[in-house]
């Protein structure tokens, strides 16, 4: 089976978000990028398990410049067979979808794994856009995947529950917690990753559907109104009369 795993970089979740003085861009100095956890912990690991089950090859693909190579190497260290980097700094999810679908136009993959969203921008748009461009069935927030008799059995998390689908390949899925268990690369994997192929391909013209004009942070932290622990009637009154939420 020919498996593709799309990996994104994301800002580490504990990082303090700082913008440039004119608020037009992220201040990336001192900012640490990691492989997006949904891609690394769930999507990539499940892809590798699937390969162990049915055979084949796992390719990881990333849209970004050379500064992302350590992230791709990490995916190779975890067990992917080869890496592809589309050499451009993407402008939006639409741009990533355009770059990936252009690359995929003359390839034949059976299944494309993504994470449900990046943990920084939280857009969550790319997986669905890519599926629509490929005209393949799409399953998002997938927490369980089985494959047998040429059919995928897929559990998708919905509000308060789960839906189970059966679908033939090819398909695109976006992974969430539960799909697999995080795997830490071992020394052998790290050494082997250095010899695995990492192909750099050039980008097609950017999609310029949308662009970020400016960033802002919530005005200021709220002033908390403290309520006496012995006077819960007062809290109920405030919630009813002032906040008007009950």
């Amino acid at each position, binding site marked *: 089976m020919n498996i593709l795993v799309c990996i994104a970089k994301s*800002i580490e979740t504990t990082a303090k978000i700082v913008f440039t003085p004119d608020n037009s861009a992220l201040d990336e100095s001192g900012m640490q990028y990691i492989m997006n956890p949904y891609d690394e912990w769930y999507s990539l690991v499940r892809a590798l398990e699937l390969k162990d089950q049915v055979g084949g090859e796992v390719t990881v693909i990333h849209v970004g410049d050379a500064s992302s190579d350590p992230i791709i190497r990490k995916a190779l260290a975890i067990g992917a067979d080869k890496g592809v980097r589309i050499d451009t700094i993407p402008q939006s999810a639409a741009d990533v979808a355009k770059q990936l679908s252009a690359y995929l136009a003359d390839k034949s993959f059976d299944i494309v794994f993504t994470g449900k969203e990046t943990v920084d921008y*939280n857009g969550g748009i790319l997986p669905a856009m890519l599926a629509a461009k490929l005209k393949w069935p799409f399953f998002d927030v997938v927490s369980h995947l089985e494959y047998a008799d040429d059919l995928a059995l897929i559990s998708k998390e919905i509000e*308060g529950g789960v839906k*189970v689908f059966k679908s033939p390949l090819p398909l695109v899925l976006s992974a969430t917690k539960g799909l697999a268990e995080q795997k830490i690369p071992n020394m052998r994997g790290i050494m082997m990753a250095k010899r695995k192929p990492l192909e750099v391909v050039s980008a097609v013209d950017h999609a310029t559907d949308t662009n970020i004009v400016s960033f802002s*942070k919530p005005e200021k932290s709220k002033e*908390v*109104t403290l309520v*006496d*622990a012995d006077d819960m009637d007062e809290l109920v009154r405030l919630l009813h009369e002032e906040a008007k939420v009950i």
Partner: protein
Amino acid sequence: MSIVVYCENIEGNLKKATLEALTYAHKMGSELGLPTYAVTTGEPLTDVLKQYGVSKYVEVSPNVPADTSLLAGSISFGFEKLNGQYLILPYNSTGKSIAGQLAVKCDAGIVSSVNALPESLEPLRVSQSLFAGKASAVVQVNTAKVVLALQSNAIQPEEKPVDEISGELVILDSLSQVELVKQEMLSEGIPLPEAELVVSGGRGFKGPENWHILEDLAKELGAATACSRPVSDADWRPHHEHVGQTGIAISPNLYIAIGISGAIQHLGGVNNSKTIVVINNDPEAPFFKAADYGVIGDLFEVVPKLTAAVQAFKSKA
């Protein structure tokens, strides 16, 4: 041209998120001089649609197929039939599966997690929530057609009744190899992502045996229950109740956090809540900085008192 809202009929109702999308469309439409239309799946619920200013709809069938690419195809067909320029939908569980597909099928630019009415219409600039609610970005859309997927609570529903509504049913191709095998609801009661009121607990509860204290309060309020990551990691509560950056993100009207210190990852999942109440015995808990109301005290004493106060309030009302 028109503004089109995707209206999903769920068990005979439009969810609040859809009413928010209708209100958003109507407000945008009055600025732009465009009518609000709807694409519906399931019975079109014309009374509600009229109440929220919809004068025309297209009902697409089959109704919410298992294959979301068919659903997105049907909606984009309705969008074109209504000569839509803007497509507005909630960024809820259905919205997340289809919004990106709709952008491709409608050949539209897309902004997700939209958290306010547009800053400008020409060019279109809208605010989007990102970094788990720690920041917003203003995004300019450069395409003729636009999909806006709204974060819940981006706007409060407002009725704008119209007298007349016309509509038609369109039956589309439903051939798909995707099959829905089964659907299971994991939790009883109110699904967390849709709940208006949420009571959430952390390590302060000391163990699952004390969870009834929280459940009593939730029951009295009619609230859904949630928990912090350490609680779900320790299996005190199921994973689908875990809210935070790596769990689910929610934005209820009221979020009551009990015995949760308020790590940045937890705040990320809840800081779009309208009102936050924090109950904690540690006055230094970082959560108090994000709270509207705070109670410093022992949860084992405070929460039962709050439950009793809510009970007293409800019996008066």
